[in-house]
């Protein structure tokens, strides 16, 4: 599903030495894997996520998404791939303000140019347990509910991969647990999920844990599931 070879990314900073964010990252992710990425702040987790999600381009290295090399595709093609193959969940939810849950979830479908937009968005909202909140705006929803709307939005186009950047970072423990349970459910129904977290307990619930440290990605040995709860 995802094959990365020698992905490098660095930033030029005026008056300071060049910052190497990703140092030759290799990564293979198989369909249906549930992967957590942990690591200290500034270690390059989000940059990796953005590259995997086609929001950013690596400086060098090869990235094959579903067997297709995507490093050098034009902008419009990347947008289309993001739309169809990838669902994003962000720490800050990034819902459109003053816009109903249903309309927020419709957004990827609007760009996909498909029919039955409202029906499909409503189904996605039911999937995350918000069938009673469709016409609520973000301001009328709790943090956990907002993140569920965001997950419904990530799901609505039926993408192969869901990328979540600290999806529980802005939530209290209880809501966070609910979101994790939802991710697990989605994974059990066959979806590939990669998420970033600071919380070792949450990471432990993933089938696979990757550690990012100063731009170097390392595999952690598998732990017994449920060992750290």
């Amino acid at each position: 599903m995802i094959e990365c070879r020698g992905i490098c990314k660095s930033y030029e900073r005026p008056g300071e030495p060049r910052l190497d964010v990703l140092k030759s990252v290799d990564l293979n992710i198989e369909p249906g894997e549930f992967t957590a990425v942990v690591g200290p702040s500034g270690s390059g987790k989000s940059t990796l996520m953005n590259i995997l999600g086609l929001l950013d381009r690596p400086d060098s290295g090869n990235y094959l998404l579903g067997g297709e090399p995507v490093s050098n595709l034009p902008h419009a093609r990347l947008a289309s791939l993001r739309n169809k193959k990838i669902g994003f969940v962000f720490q800050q939810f990034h819902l459109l303000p003053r816009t109903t849950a249903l309309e927020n979830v419709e957004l990827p479908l609007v760009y996909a140019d498909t029919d039955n937009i409202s029906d499909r968005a409503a189904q996605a909202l039911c999937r995350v347990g918000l069938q009673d909140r469709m016409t609520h705006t973000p301001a009328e929803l709790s943090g956990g509910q907002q993140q569920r709307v965001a997950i419904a939005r990530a799901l609505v186009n039926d993408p192969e991969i869901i990328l979540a950047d600290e999806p529980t970072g802005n939530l209290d423990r209880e809501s966070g647990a609910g979101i994790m349970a939802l991710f697990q459910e989605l994974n059990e129904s066959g979806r590939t999920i990669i998420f970033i977290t600071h919380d070792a307990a949450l990471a432990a619930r993933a089938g696979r844990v990757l550690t990012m440290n100063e731009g170097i990605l390392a595999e952690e040995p598998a732990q017994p599931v449920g060992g750290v709860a």
Partner: protein
Amino acid sequence: MKNGKVMAGSIRMMWRYKLRTFLMSIGVVVGVAVLVVIRSYGAGMEANIMNKMKQFFDATNIMVTTGFSADGPRTTLKLEDLEAVQAACPEIEAWDPSLMRRKTAQYRSEYHPVLVRGHSEHAELVWERGVTGGRSLDASDVKASARVALLGYKTADILFGDDDPLDQSIQLDGVPYRVIGILEPKGSDPHGEDRDDEIHVPISTMMRRIANVDYINFAKLRVTEAKYVEDVAERVEAVLRQQHALADGEDNDFSLFTPMLIKKMVARANKVFSLYLPLVAAIALLVAAIVIANIMLMAVKERIPEIGLRKAVGATDGQVSRQFLMEAFMVTLVSGLAGIVLGLGVLAVISARVDVPMPVSATAVGLGLAAAVVVGILAGIWPSRHAARMDPVAALR
């Protein structure tokens, strides 16, 4: 993504951010409304003046007036001058001299201050104004300097009430005049004189008996066909200069009015409506464009996460750009339409107040709408490009 969906999204955005939309639209609404009102008002007023003018001055007419010098009214225009003009220009069908004095008319115990005009027997043809009762002036009246008078119908009402004025005797300065006719109604003239409250007497009677002068105030010439008018006017000027022995380079001591000149004068008087005020409206629209661009840029900044998100879920640069452009366009289009409606409303009120028909200027409506659309696109381009070029990673941070 279909344009219809972008448009629907834009309208939803306008509705969601009502205050912002209002601030963006107000300049366009006012600008377009002003444009519509002023253009239509100017055109209506011009048509109104031209219509009034036509009653007194049509395409075959030339007016010769003396006007004023530094010493007061000029006394240089003589009947002989016009006779010379007539002799030189066979295209002149007829001409009618005029000399005016303000007098008090009396019938029994009724006294009425009124403008008395001396005219020739050609007045009926040249001024296209007959009588509703009795007869017009004829050549023998003029030849004999007869003491006969035509009354405007209002003058007749004032002096005679319910009595029949025909063949009755009125007095001007204590001298009796026999009423021979009642003039056709004419309304007020472009100078604002009520042409239904006046008295006409033979020009000779006016010159010798009333005013005791050898000059006239003005003369109206009627040319056989409209196409000769401007050409005849040139010859009239030449003859009059010769008659008055004006040296080369010396200014005319008379004025000639031709239909073309009058049209130009009216148009010049209306320039403030046809040119300057629309220019003001155009400047208002330009300012509106700048305001809209400004607010849009602020909106883009405010909506950076939204832009990032739209890109993350699959919007291309073009789609993001189109969305913002469409928002600016829709705001201005709707504002433009609102401005037109507002303008039409204001116009209807003004038109009713001044009692002048003001047909809606199609140019103004078209211009207003076009201006609004151009403003929208101009104001939208820069912010929309700004939004489209945004790096999604930075936008989502």
